[in-house]
């Protein structure tokens, strides 16, 4: 028998074939649960009623399941939520249930990931634990991808009785977003600047808009040419922050981007003009704001701004910032009324073919609510439930000192919900439609009238495609 020698040609042929085989194996689709796309509700109609297939009477015992969670919170909240999921996994492992949750952070890519999943008809997570999702939530609720939570939570014995007032965002009687962190706006005040200017927060606070301007003027620093070098009132020259300021004043004056019917605009009026004029005056007349600023968090965090309107999510990072001594106050009154934009940190469940997977998500959410104390103890997040609110760990946390203004907003009913539209984000906080149009006003490219007219045209165009989705806070 002759022994065949392995020639170079034969070796290359074998490795080429092996590579081809490996590539073919890698390209084979992995077995993954696919989900038939839900029947989309036509735009403009209310969200679909609870149409879940009846859940299995009981989850098959011992059925191993690996589920996916998306966490859309930055540090430290995102890290703490991840740790809680790890704890839940350990708990499940100790009970031998075969249930395991994997999670990934989607803070910067949530829109793209959801859009890709919607296009493919699969790839949604089993559970979403995130921050403010109102920019896109209604889109996916209306399309049927986000399921109503009530039937699932009822099956796992979760009760809404523990919820504080005005923390549930309901739509047609259903909860689609489980609120674990109501938030609101407040005024942040740099106390070093206030002390330097001889201002007394307790006895003479910036409780009205005029008083706020007075405070800001005393704390603003300028160079020899009169240019603002330290903002008394932090507004960036363009982008989100001036739009948020405009929105809050507009709401305090009694108007809003969209009227109560959800179909028509309600801002191209005297109130809208007055709100816009205030922003321009902050730059040009009062000279308390620097139009050259681009990064509001950086300015505040480095102590380069005296008064900053933002949400309670800034408390945590402000506490962590070096040498930043601050306090907070309620949003100022404008003609006797206040406004504080409300939003929520929410949990959602996406539609799955296997109802057991949705049930497992409900179980996770229930467990997290029962074990959520570390999240609140270590951050400035508000809780939505009484049991946590009454706990010592929550009552004694450092952040409480600063949350009074937000609690006041909820207690006195001057919060206003963010706008949620299925076609286009229409929030004051981040909407490209608003920013694109109003930037022209802040930068002097357009008059207030022209800017508001252009904005009205664009917003009306969006509303013509789909009205605002009106969540009801209960």
């Amino acid at each position: 028998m002759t022994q065949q020698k392995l020639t170079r040609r034969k070796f290359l042929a074998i490795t080429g074939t092996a590579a081809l085989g490996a590539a073919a194996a890698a390209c084979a689709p992995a077995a993954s649960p696919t989900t038939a796309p839900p029947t989309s509700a036509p735009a403009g109609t209310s969200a679909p009623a609870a149409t879940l297939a009846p859940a299995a009477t009981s989850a098959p015992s011992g059925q191993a399941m690996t589920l996916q969670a998306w966490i859309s919170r930055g540090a430290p909240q995102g890290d703490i939520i991840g740790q809680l999921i790890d704890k839940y996994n350990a708990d499940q492992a100790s009970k031998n249930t075969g249930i395991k949750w994997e999670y990934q952070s989607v803070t910067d890519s949530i829109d793209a990931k959801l859009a890709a999943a919607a296009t493919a008809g699969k790839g949604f997570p089993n559970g979403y634990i995130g921050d403010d999702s109102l920019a896109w939530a209604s889109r996916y609720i209306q399309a049927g991808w986000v399921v109503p939570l009530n039937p699932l939570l009822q099956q796992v014995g979760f009760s809404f009785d523990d919820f504080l007032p005005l923390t549930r965002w309901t739509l047609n009687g259903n909860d689609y977003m489980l609120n674990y962190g109501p938030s609101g706006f407040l005024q942040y005040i740099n106390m070093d600047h206030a002390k330097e200017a001889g201002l007394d927060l307790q006895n003479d606070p910036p409780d009205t808009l005029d008083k706020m301007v007075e405070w800001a003027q005393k704390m603003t620093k300028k160079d020899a040419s009169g240019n603002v070098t330290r903002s008394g009132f932090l507004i960036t020259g363009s982008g989100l922050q001036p739009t948020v300021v405009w929105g809050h004043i507009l709401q305090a004056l009694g108007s809003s981007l969209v009227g109560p019917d959800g179909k028509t605009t309600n801002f191209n009026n005297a109130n809208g003009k007055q709100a816009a004029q205030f922003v321009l005056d902050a730059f040009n007349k009062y000279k308390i704001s620097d139009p050259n600023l681009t990064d509001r968090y950086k300015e505040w965090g480095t102590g380069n701004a005296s008064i900053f309107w933002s949400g309670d999510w800034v408390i945590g990072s402000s506490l962590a910032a070096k040498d930043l001594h601050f306090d907070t106050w309620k949003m100022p009154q404008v003609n006797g009324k206040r406004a504080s934009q409300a939003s929520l940190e929410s949990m959602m469940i996406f539609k799955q073919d296997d109802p057991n997977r949705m049930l497992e998500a409900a179980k996770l959410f229930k467990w997290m609510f029962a074990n959520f104390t570390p999240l609140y103890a270590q951050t400035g997040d508000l809780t939505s439930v009484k049991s946590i609110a009454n706990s010592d760990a929550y009552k004694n946390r450092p952040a409480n000192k600063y949350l009074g203004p937000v609690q006041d907003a909820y207690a006195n009913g001057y919060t206003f919900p963010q706008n949620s539209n299925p076609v286009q984000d229409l929030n004051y906080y981040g909407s490209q439609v608003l920013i694109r149009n109003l930037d022209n006003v802040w930068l002097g490219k357009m008059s207030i009238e022209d800017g508001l007219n252009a904005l009205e045209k664009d917003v009306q165009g969006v509303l013509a495609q789909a009205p605002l989705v009106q969540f009801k806070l209960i």
Partner: protein
Amino acid sequence: MKEQVLAAEKQAKSQARVQARRGFFSRHDRIAYSFLIPFAILFIAFSLYPFLAGLYLSFTDNSPLVRETHFIGLTNYIQILLNDRIFVDSLKNTFYYVIIVVPAQVVLGLVLALYINKRLFGHEISRMAFFAPFVLSVSVVGIVWGWILETRYGLLNLSLAAIGLPGNTPWLSNISWVMIGIGLSSLWWHIGISMVLFLAGLQDIPAELREAAVIDGANGWQVLWHVTLPLLRPVGVLVFILALIDAMKVFGQPWFMTNGGPAGASTTVVYDLYLNFQSTKMGYASAIGFLLLVIILIIALIRQLALKEDLT
């Protein structure tokens, strides 16, 4: 002699018959194609199919959350070109950015390559320093340059002020300056690759040609202009095309540095595409993408015709 010629002819014919019999299914070809198949599969799956699927999408009103998909012909393209003010503005912004960045990248890349090629003092470290930014991701570049270009205490303005130049340029907060600011970050990021390509081209030029020119009495500038640059033309075309494609596709820097602002002044075509994609207007976003492709091809074609160059 005649027999030898006939024998040679016979052998040649025999070889030609063997060659003809080899054809498509010859053993050599089979081996060659077997090595190509893995790439072909990946190319078809991840390049060709998505390309064709995107092209089809661009002729539909696909928006998976809002409606069922219908074929609408050229409606998207007409809407984009005639009624979409945001697209038109984003196209203007993109062209403005191209005019800033592309010539600078070509010229500066060449200058740096010439400097490195001269092997002057520090050329080794310089080569590494100029190329190093290229390996960074766009998010790092965007975040770092967002700080560098900050008006009040950004590194660039502070440095300019330190040497007596105006140090209060609103690089990212002013409509007129924002694309220049973004362009600076892009130049810093990509200049290395242009330099490396030109350097490779320079090192390919036979030294004898330059020496011959010098012997004939040419000075340094004349050698550069009449010998080096003409021979570098193919590389120059490649650098230009690559820089052009890159500039037309710019997205990351506006995303991380300015969010497309102020007032949409740094919203580019791909940024606009992404916003439409985020809103799940897939058909519309696809049409924007293909329009961009056509525009880039037209520009490349115009350049070829204008200079009557063979790009192959």
